[in-house]
């Protein structure tokens, strides 16, 4: 892909301004790392994006997993909360972002809230489904070995639900990641998304491509970390 990109720019088929060569992007990267970008640093912007993402996603996981597990366990709680989750899930987060900005301002508050709302329904639904899918047979085996309700929850229900919970977390992280960048494109004063929009007004396509590359690598890295955790925690996934 890199070679194709290079060939495309060198051959002159596309104008240099529209599609900078890999070398141009490399040079821009070095310059921005050295001098910063319009009073901000590349790392600062990257950190703003990741920080928001982790805050929103982390909160959603912290609240969503226990709530989802509880919904899965208790029919009443499940029925009470399920429709909210089902309502929220298909909504594109950006559709209610403007409200969040009006309520919470353009700062981090509205973005963390947005990311929370993006990740939360996914995590809740997956966790609840994880608990509901626990094999009745396994529970009966535990009961017949003298397990109490609390022991069944801890030793059978939670581990059984773990694969689905972790899948939910991975899907939610990917969704939150694309939302954070979109949100920064719409309204922000820092972050990689903001850099893209800012660079576009100055026709700095080299900076735009640089940001996109960094975003891609960041997204991949975060997803990879969760996958690693997944493989360590639920080594039995798909087997039995």
């Amino acid at each position, binding site marked *: 892909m890199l070679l194709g990109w290079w060939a495309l720019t060198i051959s002159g088929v596309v104008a240099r301004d529209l599609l900078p060569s890999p070398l141009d992007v490399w040079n821009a990267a070095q310059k921005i790392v050295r001098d910063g970008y319009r009073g901000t640093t590349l790392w600062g912007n990257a950190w703003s994006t990741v920080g928001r993402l982790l805050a929103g996603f982390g909160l959603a996981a912290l609240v969503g997993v226990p709530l989802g597990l509880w919904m899965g366990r208790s029919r009443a709680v499940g029925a009470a909360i399920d429709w909210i989750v089902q309502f929220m899930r298909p909504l594109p987060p950006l559709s209610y972002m403007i409200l969040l900005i009006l309520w919470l301002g353009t700062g981090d508050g509205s973005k963390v809230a947005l990311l929370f709302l993006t990740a939360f329904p996914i995590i809740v639904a997956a966790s609840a489904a994880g608990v509901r899918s626990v094999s009745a047979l*396994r529970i009966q085996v535990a*009961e017949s070995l003298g397990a109490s309700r609390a022991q069944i929850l801890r030793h059978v229900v939670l581990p059984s639900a773990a694969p689905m919970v972790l899948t939910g977390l991975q899907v939610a992280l990917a969704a939150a990641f694309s939302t954070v960048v979109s949100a920064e494109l719409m309204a922000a004063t820092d972050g990689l998304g903001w850099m893209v929009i800012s660079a576009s007004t100055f026709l700095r396509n080299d900076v735009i491509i640089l940001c996109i590359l960094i975003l891609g690598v960041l997204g991949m890295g975060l997803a990879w970390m969760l996958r690693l955790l997944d493989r360590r925690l639920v080594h039995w996934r798909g087997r039995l």
Partner: protein
Amino acid sequence: MSAASVRPTARDFVRFDGVSVRYGTGTSAVQALERADLSFAAGDFICIVGPSGCGKTTLMQTLAGFLKPTSGEVSLEGKVVEGPGPERGVVFQQPALFPWMTVAANAGFGPRLRGSRDVDARAETWLRTVGLWEFRDRYPYELSGGMQQRLAIARALCGEPKILLMDEPFGALDALTRERMQEELHAVWRRTGMTVVFITHSVEEAVYLGTEVVVMSPRPGRIVDRIAVRFAREMAEDGIRAVKSDPEFIATRERVLSLIWQMGET
């Protein structure tokens, strides 16, 4: 060979008294069991046979405590069964193991729940008995189907139940593995003197494993006949093969089979 001639004393280790079970309500209700009466003594090896869907699993579930009878009651040692308990071990057709635990942890799960101090020793004993000791640090998904079922049995035995309830435990195994497991199970039963309730589709299996074969009618399930068998006590010396070619064994097997056939026609 009427039921009453078999050890008439202490026959009420387990009692089913007029146990009826109806699933669902209204027009879609299914009467699975209709006033089933059955009792047997400690140390018996009770094999339950009957046409598919006659309520064998349902009967076992009421004794295991997973299912409350619609009417009637089940008792163990004079105490009415109210729910599942560790004195009744269960083994299902599927092993239903815990894949997040090692083989050793699966085996020792019962005693560990109760905080017993000799968890490891007990797990070792039973894992050795079923020939899985070398695999103690593996995970269930690394075992073959037969090994998984052996682990399920070891897990149930490790809880030191007074009675072992098995619902077609060898149904999913190939013929060779199945025969080997039958021998193993039988050896454990002879050594421990434990009580076993064993549901099976195979009349042959029932006749050489059981001290008594209980025949159930098609739905709604009733106890139709109980046939005392002597081969279980002889297996130690002769082995399965010798028993299978014994003319009396063949006669008993045919008797049970014809009972089941007759019911199918009415």
